[in-house]
């Protein structure tokens, strides 16, 4: 028999799903180990990136190709040019979306390896159906429509066997006694209908109101454009979640662990019915994990199924994972799967119809769940992960609990954390305390994620099916010694202890970027990096909010101070209590809409003498504003100026109140009140106050007028109502964020600063001006305070 290399010499092999884990490995292996074949990759056009560019970026730049690049040296690019062809196409469309040229290429191929799939176990039902169920059929039809005669190797999964117990043979599904019989066409229609139904349901008034409310509670008074886009995102997420749940429910009702296995199984059946004359071989790997040896030990792409679970365990987040201790966890290194597929391609199709190979370890070299847990645990005991304080994390003892118990525990934990989070975000806290809420949220996310793992992957640690590999081994035995050395796919080749300890875990620990030593990381901390980024010389505009960003004060305090300045002693006390009594209502209004609040509140200045206020504002500056300022914040403004950046203050405070801050800023955008012909304030704003999205607009207008780019700008603000301003710039900074913003900032990786008043400054109990000498006590300010 010819060697693999000889068998494939001069042949064209088309690979779908080449940007995926298995596909990338396949392309690399074909190019490296089968030097006389040509490779065609079918890649979808990106939204902005053409297919060829995606191949460069997503396939060739992966470290999978490091070895080939090294081996070929300068010849790498020319080899790729000569041997790798890119065809734009889409598995989700009939005819694969191929043009004539594409069809011609397909016609010229001797082998088509279909490895494209929606591999995520929690894909929405409709998407999984389109790709996994209909995909193989579409590929087969495209081959026959192109007039070609390629051998179609369809990559499936061993778990098409469903939740069966006992041996699962390498046979076509219709020939296995236990397989669920379902009419696949009906499933396709139902899935598509479900997609439309959920979408329609999500647009009902009640649901839209709910999404709006959720968006509001997440973002606060962030302005309508932001709330609208957030609401729409929540709606789409909800539809997706419904489809995910529907997928799992449907799959489990039919005896499959999840939508992936379910759609794959139906996909096999559909392919067999629709393949026409196309010769087909189905290859069913089990759980594909990092490479045993090719292209290098531990190579892995993307974070897959077991990795998050194993890392969560190492970090002490996941204390228990259900499973049957003596059950088999069927893991197979990616390079074994790749070698098996190539061997199948070299062998060619069988004359008497489709056949099946399973690439799995369970039947020949089983890894028991207890053994895996022991190996993982002993690995972490020797190489612990470290927490943020540099302390090694002790991994918990595994007790192999039942799935139900773990799920209940995790559910309770996540509910308790959600309640705590809600409680805190309802409190008017900010800065360090608000971070607690953000931390609670993180813990809840972790608990929910753990719960998700248990729900999703629980079935895989409870599988009692044993995947048979007799045909695979028979194929293996036909290879000569050289091919066996080059294309190892005998599951016996895996020494589990070596694989887990020396190959897989070291690789995923690196991929997960978790702390593996107590030492402080090299270089700058996250905080220092953030600071360096905002203070980079190429930035050119820094916009600042005032209240709680630069000073711990607000318009009510300024008003109270100014208004009490000229009051006689007895009226001062009355005035204070009156203001205090109004505080809760004012606060509520402020939370609802900042603009309305300012409009309402500034009415109090009606009738106040403008000139006197301007003068008093200077005293206010020293006595209240500077006293309550954050020195680090003011220093930051000055640092920006020293770097030559423009600085702009955007605040809803009144212009005369912030006038003394003028030397810090190139531009101050503040609220201004009208003045009548007697020099008294009208109490009405001259133009809309700069709040919410108006801030973003002001900033954009300023940047435009001055020829600055928002991408290179920095914005500092403290609350979710400033989101439009923060989102408008390339470098948002959350200062002393209140709970909502803290959460948003953490999720988006925004730089966070905690700026505080300096300890040691005067700390007046009430925002009252000191008592004026008697002849200056000329009475109340404006009309409203009388």
């Amino acid at each position: 028999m010819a060697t693999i290399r000889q068998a494939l010499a001069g042949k064209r092999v088309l690979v779908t799903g080449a940007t995926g884990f298995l596909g990338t490995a396949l392309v690399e292996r074909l190019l490296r180990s089968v030097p006389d074949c040509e490779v065609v990759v079918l890649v979808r056009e990106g939204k902005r990136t053409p297919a060829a560019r995606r191949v460069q970026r997503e396939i060739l730049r992966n470290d999978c190709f490091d070895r080939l690049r090294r081996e070929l040296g300068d010849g790498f690019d020319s080899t790729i040019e000569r041997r790798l062809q890119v065809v734009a196409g889409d598995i989700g469309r009939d005819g694969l979306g191929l043009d004539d040229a594409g069809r011609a290429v397909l016609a010229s191929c001797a082998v088509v390896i279909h490895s494209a799939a929606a591999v995520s176990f929690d894909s929405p039902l409709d998407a999984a159906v389109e790709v996994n169920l209909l995909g193989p059929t579409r590929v087969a039809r495209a081959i026959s429509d192109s007039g070609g005669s390629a051998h179609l190797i369809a990559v499936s999964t061993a778990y098409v066997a469903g939740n069966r117990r006992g041996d699962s043979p390498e046979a076509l599904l219709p020939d296995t006694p236990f397989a669920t019989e379902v009419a696949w066409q009906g499933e396709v229609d139902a899935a598509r209908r479900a997609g439309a139904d959920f979408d329609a349901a999500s647009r009902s008034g009640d649901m839209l109101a709910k999404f709006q409310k959720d968006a509001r509670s997440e973002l606060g008074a962030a302005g309508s454009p932001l709330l609208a886009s957030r609401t729409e995102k929540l709606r789409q997420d909800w539809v997706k979640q419904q489809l995910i749940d529907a997928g799992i429910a449907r799959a489990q009702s039919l005896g499959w662990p999840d939508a992936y296995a379910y759609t794959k199984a139906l996909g096999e059946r559909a392919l067999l019915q629709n393949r026409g004359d196309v010769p087909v071989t189905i290859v069913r790997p089990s759980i594909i994990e990092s490479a045993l040896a090719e292209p290098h030990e531990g190579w892995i792409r993307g974070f897959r199924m077991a990795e998050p679970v194993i890392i969560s365990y190492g970090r002490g987040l996941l204390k228990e994972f259900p499973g049957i201790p003596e059950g088999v966890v069927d893991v197979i290194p990616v390079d074994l799967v790749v070698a098996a597929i190539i061997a199948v391609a070299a062998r060619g199709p069988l004359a008497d119809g489709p056949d099946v190979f399973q690439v799995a370890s369970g039947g020949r070299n089983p890894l028991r769940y207890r053994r895996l847990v022991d190996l993982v645990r002993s690995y972490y005991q020797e190489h612990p992960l470290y927490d943020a304080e540099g302390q090694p994390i002790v991994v918990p003892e595994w007790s192999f609990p039942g799935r139900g118990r773990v799920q209940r525990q995790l559910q309770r934990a996540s509910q308790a954390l959600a309640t705590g989070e809600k409680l805190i975000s309802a409190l008017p806290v900010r800065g360090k305390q608000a971070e607690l809420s953000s931390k609670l949220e993180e813990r809840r996310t972790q608990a929910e994620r753990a719960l998700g793992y248990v729900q999703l992957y629980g079935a895989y640690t409870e599988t009692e099916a044993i995947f048979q590999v007799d045909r695979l081994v028979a194929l293996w035995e036909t290879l000569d010694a050289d091919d066996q050395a080059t294309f190892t796919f005998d599951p016996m080749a895996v020494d589990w202890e070596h694989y887990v300890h020396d190959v897989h875990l070291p690789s995923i620990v690196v991929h997960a970027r978790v702390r593996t030593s107590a030492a402080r990381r090299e270089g700058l901390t996250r905080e220092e990096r953030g600071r360096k980024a905002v203070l980079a010389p190429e930035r050119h505009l820094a916009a600042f909010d005032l209240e709680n960003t630069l000073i711990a004060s607000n318009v009510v305090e300024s008003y109270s101070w100014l208004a009490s300045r000229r009051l006689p002693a007895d009226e001062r006390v009355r005035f204070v209590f009156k203001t205090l009594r109004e505080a809760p209502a004012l606060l509520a209004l402020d939370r609802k809409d900042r603009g309305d609040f300012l409009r309402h509140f500034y009415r109090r200045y009606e009738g106040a003498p403008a000139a006197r206020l301007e003068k008093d504002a200077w005293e206010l500056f020293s006595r209240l504003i500077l006293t309550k300022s954050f020195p680090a914040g003011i220093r930051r403004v000055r640092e920006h100026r020293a770097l030559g950046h423009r600085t702009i203050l955007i605040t809803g405070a009144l212009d005369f109140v912030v006038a003394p801050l003028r030397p810090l800023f190139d531009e101050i955008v503040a609220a201004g009140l009208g003045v009548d012909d007697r020099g008294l304030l009208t109490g009405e704003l001259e133009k809309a106050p700069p709040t919410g999205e108006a801030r973003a607009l002001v900033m954009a207008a300023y940047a435009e007028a001055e020829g600055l780019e928002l991408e290179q700008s920095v914005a500092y603000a403290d609350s979710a109502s400033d989101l439009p301003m923060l989102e408008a710039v390339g470098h948002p900074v959350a200062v002393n964020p209140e709970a909502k913003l803290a959460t948003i900032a953490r999720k988006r990786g925004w730089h966070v600063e905690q700026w505080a008043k300096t300890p040691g400054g005067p700390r007046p109990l009430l925002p009252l001006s000191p008592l004026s000498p008697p002849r200056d006590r000329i009475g109340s300010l404006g009309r409203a305070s009388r």
Partner: protein
Amino acid sequence: MSPRPGFVLDVDRSTPPTLFWHGENYRLERLPVGSRVLYPPEPVAALTDPDGAVRQALVEPLGDSPPLPELLHAGMRLTICFDDISLPLPPMRRPDNRQRVIEAVLELAAEAGVDDVVLIAALALHRRMTDDELRHALGDRVFNAFAPNGLLLQHDAEDPSALVHVGTTDAGEDVEINKRAAESDLIVYVNINLVAMDGGWKSTATGLASYKSLRHHHNVRTMQHSKSFMDQHRSELHSSNWRMGKVIRDAGVKIFQIETTLNSDTFPSQFAFLQKREWEWSAKDRAAFLASSKALDRTPSRVARSIFHSIKAPHAMTSVQAGEVEAVHQRTTEKVYEQQLVPVEGQTDIVTMGLPYICPYNVNSVMNPILVACLGLGYFFNLYRGKPVVREGGVAILSHPTPWEFNPVHHPSYIDFFEQVLAETTDPLEIEAKFEEDFATDPWYIHLYRTSYAYHGVHPFYMWYWCAHALQHLGGVIIVGGDPKSVRRLGFKSASTLVDALEMASDIVGRSPTITHLHCPPLMIADVT
């Protein structure tokens, strides 16, 4: 009975524990047997009729000055300048010396028909005084007569239109001072000479000057060559000011200098034990100490601070002299020495000092770490004539909580100096070369100095330069009971108790060092031979 002079106590087994100030509190510490404690002289007698003495001084001037009435005439421009909030410490009870003197001067001016009179607080680069503070220093009558009419000014060293370049000294030093003062027919300068550093030509050449002028003597080199600045004749600070004074005088600026001295009656009667010698404490003193220190232990420092800052000292005027600057100042210095000089024989390996809650730059404010350093190493260390109390290479042990606290209104540039400059280096020369100019010319600090109540941007540098002589001289500085973080930032060592501090000091000065404690305040000057 004449007051008892200063005294050096040798600690033996029977000596009671010694009082150490510790910020807004005080402690009793047991010094090792053989240590010395320097006690200031008791308060000297006050003038029985201070107002009479003032009037007399004005008509019987010293030096070649005519009596004040002869210098006053209708149609003249008269400017009365006075020392700012940094003097005296603690602020004295009303009436303040400034009020007594200025009222007397204004009376004569009114008699002479002078109607162009302006009062100027000689701030130099200090913060502006608040209305309340001005009112306290000048009294209601003067304040109400001048302030509402815009005739009570505070020197603005950053207003180019209010400054005039008078000339340059033969050492190349610019003399730029307040324009209104310089262009007046007469400057009457009203001093309170709490320590020997104050007064003389320093009043006008420093108090009314701009940064451009001050930088010639407010720098590291000058301070390292002022040994000490309490001793005019060995002080480069004073030499420079005297050169500038000559330029001012030669430019035809007429100055009628009035200097007053105070006795060391520093604390009101309920705190009398603070200025007594411990073995003379009565049962009442001991009770007052116990009660107050225990209460202060339980009081938040913020509250304790406001209690202490409300203290008005019962200081009483001990002398007033007026006339020609140098003649007046010579007499004043004698008077200050009379109250403060304590003869001391020989230096020691270690000097200990308990630092109180106040220094010249934090009246009505928190004493930030830079001011702690300045009070200990700038002021207390320099309270000597002849030789420093501690030998070269010796150790200074300071007792103060040294909190990482600042007043954001008064000391904005201090915060940045502490966070940015001291984080990088504590070497005065390096700081001066690398950072001074940026801070001194920073528009934001200038803005705050001019419009708010902030010390000038360069002021924290001067505080650090004030320590330069001590930093050069000493082998180590240890702060007892300080916030370790701030102490480390200052570049000093932190000890939790005096015993620990002495133990740490032994690494530098050996196992059996000699120790001297400055029992201060009340202020004194160690005359070390």
